[in-house]
């Protein structure tokens, strides 16, 4: 059974359709890539799925449960967590405290939360920074912190919004390894990414959005060879 079903989701802002009639499914354990040119509605779709916007039409079904109208904190508690395109560190708190905030979603004990947090800090390899203020970290480490923090909420499905944006190739490579490590933990992932090489490498399947609509869906090979996708990215004749 699919862990996430998007059924005919549309989101209108006034007369503008940021998403229109998008449908697809994600199976447990897979990595789903979500790509599309700027303004295609990728982040809007994330916001609709995670409760930041209620979808104007359609349904989001997670783990057999209808998610429409649930607040983001409820969504997170049910096991769906997201990161932000523009990183949002809790600047005046230390790295481990940031991750503890995520862990405290699952426990009331600070001691246990600290242990859970340190575990995730090790997963993203930020141990050497654990007592630093989050606001002082360079961008690559902030992105990792973001991932550690959502991992600490013990998600079943992780939505990563451009975790490689603004990183140099070495840092991107680290994130790619991290995403593959997370898959080994059995966590399903949906990844928005602009770096085509990276997304083709890690995704099991890819959905392409263009002007708010689903343009194509398939394996990376199918997507690369799809003339419509090529046209959307490079412009048609």
């Amino acid at each position, binding site marked *: 059974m699919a862990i996430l079903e998007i059924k005919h989701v549309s989101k209108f802002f006034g007369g503008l359709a940021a998403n229109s009639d998008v449908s697809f499914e994600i199976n447990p354990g897979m990595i789903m890539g979500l790509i599309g040119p700027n303004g295609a509605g990728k982040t809007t779709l994330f916001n609709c799925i995670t409760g930041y916007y209620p979808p104007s039409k359609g349904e989001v079904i997670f783990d057999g449960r209808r998610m429409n109208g649930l607040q983001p904190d409820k969504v997170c508690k049910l096991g769906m967590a997201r990161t932000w395109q523009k990183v949002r560190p*809790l600047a005046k708190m*230390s790295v481990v405290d940031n991750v503890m*905030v995520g862990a405290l979603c699952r426990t009331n004990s*600070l001691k246990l939360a600290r242990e859970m947090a340190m575990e995730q800090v090790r997963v993203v390899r930020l141990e050497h920074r654990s007592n*630093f203020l989050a606001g*002082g970290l360079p961008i690559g480490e902030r992105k990792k912190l973001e991932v550690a923090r*959502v991992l600490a909420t013990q998600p079943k499905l992780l939505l990563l919004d451009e975790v490689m944006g603004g990183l140099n190739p070495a840092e991107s490579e680290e994130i790619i390894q991290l995403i593959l490590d997370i898959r080994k933990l059995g966590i399903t992932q949906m990844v928005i990414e602009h770096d085509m090489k990276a997304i083709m490498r890690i995704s099991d399947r890819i959905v392409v959005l263009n002007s708010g609509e689903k343009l194509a869906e398939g394996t990376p090979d199918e997507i690369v060879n799809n003339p419509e996708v090529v046209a959307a990215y490079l412009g048609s004749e």
Partner: protein
Amino acid sequence: MNHPGILHNRHGASPLAIIAFIAIVALLIAFPGFVESPYARHIMVLLFLSTIMGESWNIIGGYTGQYSVGHAAYFGAGAYGTLIVMNAAQFDQDKLLELKDLAQDSHLSALLLSAHYLHPWTGVLVGMLAALTLSLIIGSICFRLRGPYFVLASIAVAEIVRISVLNLSDLTQGAEGILISDLPPIIIGGRTITDFSTKVPFYYIGLGLVLLTILVTWLVQNSKLGYFFQAIREDQDAAHSLGISLTFYKNSALAISAVLTSLAGSFYAIYIKFIDPTTVLSLDLSVQIVLISIIGGIGTIYGPVVGALVLVPLSEILRSNYLGESLVNSGLVNPDSAVGNFLTENLSHAHVLIYGILVVLVILFMPEGVLGFIRKIMAKKRLGRS
């Protein structure tokens, strides 16, 4: 590469800090024993009052980042709750005594008598309950708003409360205010205190409340609540996405803060023995409450203490014109010159202006408050040494 952030550790208090804390508390307990001056004791009571207000606001403003500029509403709830009930209860008790005389050998049961009995100090609880209720109402309305809009809404709601109290004169005696001549006896720690003519009982009540607010703040900081409050302050969308219910935790922070603020109001009311809407419900007071934390350093346990230590003496010195007069008396400035005249005659009238300018300077040059400023200097020294 740049040094990424400051090394940061604050898990558990150091033994030295605990010893210092106990020593200071012991000194404060002993203080009235060796300082008899009523003025000095009065200043200490004012310091305690400011600290209680600052610590209370710090929970919603400093830790949770919701700058409420309407805390006078909760302060007023405490003050009015306390005095209204106290007046009514004392009245009842007088009546009760008459009834008791009548009831002797008659069939009026003791049970009936005790049903009439309302302890005068329950007013403090009534004030707390009123503040709690008010905070839940205000929270449910104002927390839909963010940032500056929340600030404006909090001011507006506090003004509504002030105007209501002004006009509900049957209950609150309107603009006339409420006066209380004698305080009813209170039992603290097995001892019954009946003598409120000195400042000593107020000193200890104030000290106790200061310790209570510090304890509450410490408990908040060292629990899930503290982490969630600070996460909301740093980035509420991120906090929301990490499973934190914004409505629940913002309202919790405001409720804790409001109840503690109402205690400050009750304390003020029994100390001054007179309240009216302009003193306990004004916007001035709301701003003052905010300043204590901001000047001291928001989001820290001892910030409000530092803020009170700065602001209370500053306002006393400026108001009594101690500076101007001592300059003239020391012979540095000729009292007949224009400067001397200005110092003795005009400076005291300008105390609010000078107070305002100093506050602006502190906020400009120490954006993290006095405590934050001291910490920064100490951190720099430590880095320089290593």
